[in-house]
């Protein structure tokens, strides 16, 4: 088959997908852009054209700036922790030991649970009156009185990050484990013969095989973490005193609770832009590391 007919055929096969994508992503996106330049309400009339007013007001709003910092902190810390935990878990599960299969299956569980279930579970764990965390810490003598983990701005965000990590590190572990299986046994065996310690073996023999897949995990998790909504909505609704309010929660409040569809759309587009820039930066990084690895 010639190259051109191959291309035509590929495009032909892709056509249904493209149509669906334009319908479910493209059109709503265009509609949202239009909406973001109006003062439309959620119900009622279409609203008047207000230019970049919504954007200007949003960017100058101290609530927005504070929420942006909260979101960035949440994303950076939780994704970093998930990457480290995920790789460690994968290294462990890649060892030969009895019960490895069961452990692998168990590890997937938190990730397979719906986020709302996970969040409700952690709310119970953190419960200031009857929670398991308080009980465990006091029994171990690490805490002398029960604490309100989700009620203090100092601990609420960290508590949410822990819950998010618990749910999402298995995904990173899964991807890393698959990559580890691809490391040829004879190379690791050879490095042992050459006298490389565990750290050197990881850094120079195993890590090069992991970089590509881990980059994929990093991109996926960062984008998800930037858009985080459900786990926070269920556990703190953005409280106490808005210390755990992220961008998605702000979008939700603006567009749905306050019914300012236009202003909400502009905020949603700012978030979309941020995530796109992040994804593009990562993609460039992946290309660079993949290029240097080969």
């Amino acid at each position: 088959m010639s190259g051109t007919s191959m291309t035509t055929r590929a495009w032909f096969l892709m056509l249904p997908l493209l149509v669906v994508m334009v319908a479910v992503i493209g059109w709503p996106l265009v509609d949202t852009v239009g909406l973001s330049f109006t003062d439309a309400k959620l119900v009622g009339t279409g609203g008047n054209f207000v230019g970049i007013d919504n954007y200007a007001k949003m960017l100058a709003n101290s609530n927005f700036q504070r929420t942006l910092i909260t979101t960035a902190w949440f994303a950076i810390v939780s994704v970093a922790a998930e990457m480290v935990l995920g790789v460690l878990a994968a290294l462990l599960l890649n060892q030969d030991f009895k019960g490895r299969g069961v452990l692998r299956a168990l590890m997937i569980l938190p990730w397979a649970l719906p986020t709302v279930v996970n969040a409700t579970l952690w709310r119970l764990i953190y419960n200031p009156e009857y929670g398991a965390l308080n009980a465990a810490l006091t029994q171990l003598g690490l805490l002398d009185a029960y604490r309100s983990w989700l009620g203090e701005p100092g601990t609420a965000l960290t508590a949410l990050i822990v819950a998010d990590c618990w749910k999402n590190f298995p995904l990173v572990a899964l991807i890393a484990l698959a990559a580890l299986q691809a490391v040829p046994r004879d190379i690791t065996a050879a490095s042992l013969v050459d006298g490389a310690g565990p750290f050197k073996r990881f850094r120079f023999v195993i890590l090069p095989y992991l970089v590509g897949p881990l980059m994929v995990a990093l991109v996926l998790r960062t984008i998800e973490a930037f858009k985080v909504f459900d786990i926070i909505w269920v556990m703190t609704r953005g409280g106490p005193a808005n210390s755990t309010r992220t961008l998605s929660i702000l979008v939700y409040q603006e567009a749905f609770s306050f019914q300012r569809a236009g202003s909400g759309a502009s905020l949603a587009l700012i978030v979309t832009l941020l995530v796109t820039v992040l994804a593009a930066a990562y993609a460039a990084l992946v290309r660079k590391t993949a290029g240097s690895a080969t």
Partner: protein
Amino acid sequence: MLKSLNKTLLGAALIGVSFASHALAETTINALFMAQAAYSEADVRAMTDAFTKANPDVKVNLEFVPYEGLHDKTVLAQGSGGGYDVVLFDVIWPAEYATNKVLVDVSSRMSDDTKKNVLPGAWTTVQYDGKYYGMPWILDTKYLFYNKEILEKAGIKTPPKTWDELNEQAKTIKDKGLLATPIAWSWSQAEAAICDYATLVSAYKGDFIKDGKPDFQTGGGLDALKYMVTSYKSGLTNPNSKEFLEEDVRKVFENGDAAFALNWTYMYNMANDPKDSKVAGKVGVVPAPGVAGKSDASAVNGSMGLGITSASKHPDEAWKYISFMTSQATQNQYAKLSLPIWASSYSDPAVTKGQEELIAAAKVGLAAMYPRPTTPKYQELSTALQQAIQESLLGQSSPEDALKSAAQNSGL
């Protein structure tokens, strides 16, 4: 061949289905309810079953969401072209729903008898600008619940009549070592906190809004928040109150970990149920206290109503259903979790028996019900106030400053 046969069969089946539904003339209406407090989900299902038994031509699809999702779900369904015929709505939403045409004006459907026989206070739940946007269904206010056993052990003869007395009694209980933190509130960053705050605002005779402008940042509104902060800082209030919703308050009270708790009607019979509660039989209830020289009691209007959405294609059936759900017979039958809206029910022994104490408190509380402001911007105002309350409790800002910025962010 096979394909065309399939098509024919499918066509026949479709025609059959459409004929069948016409033959029964069955109408299906969708109703949105809440999955907590007051009437339980099982009660609403039982009431609805009774309705469909009496009206076999109307089918009712029920959906239950937590209170926190009720408003947004209603508005979203409306924004996307409908879905619900009947929706449960909170007393704070008629202004917004009426302005944005979410609910239908049902004034012309309301009979004079109904207008006369329902408690006057209940009507404020469904009215905006002189028009009726539904029927009141859950009549509710916050009461002060107390643990009789703990008060007795502390040598306290009568429950508090003023908010200052509440602090004194709580201090006695704390000093005697009976409980470390005797009072429980629902001060989580949610509407629940506004209900507690509004109860106090009513006691201090404050205003939320005056002449269309925020007025809570001085006078009674400021006194109310100051009271909350003092109670919190003194250690008399359970510090976890700032992440409690009503259900958390109930659990703490039922576990015997609170001497006093502010909560809705539904807690009375639940806390007195030995299956769930460690304090069954020891539950006392009085109207929320007042402030010496200002008020004898305080109460917030926490009632809810049932209305017809403007997207509904079956308003007549929807009204039939609402009339049944809010009828005196139905309400009397389920009076254990939510008191009836009908004035004469309160002298009916079938309703009052076994809950005389609650009825006595209700007579004072329901008469004193204080409304949260009726403004289309309510959600924004409430969100700003929730933030102010939490910042003050956490000591991030003074009540004065917190309320000042809440006034600026209230959208008014």
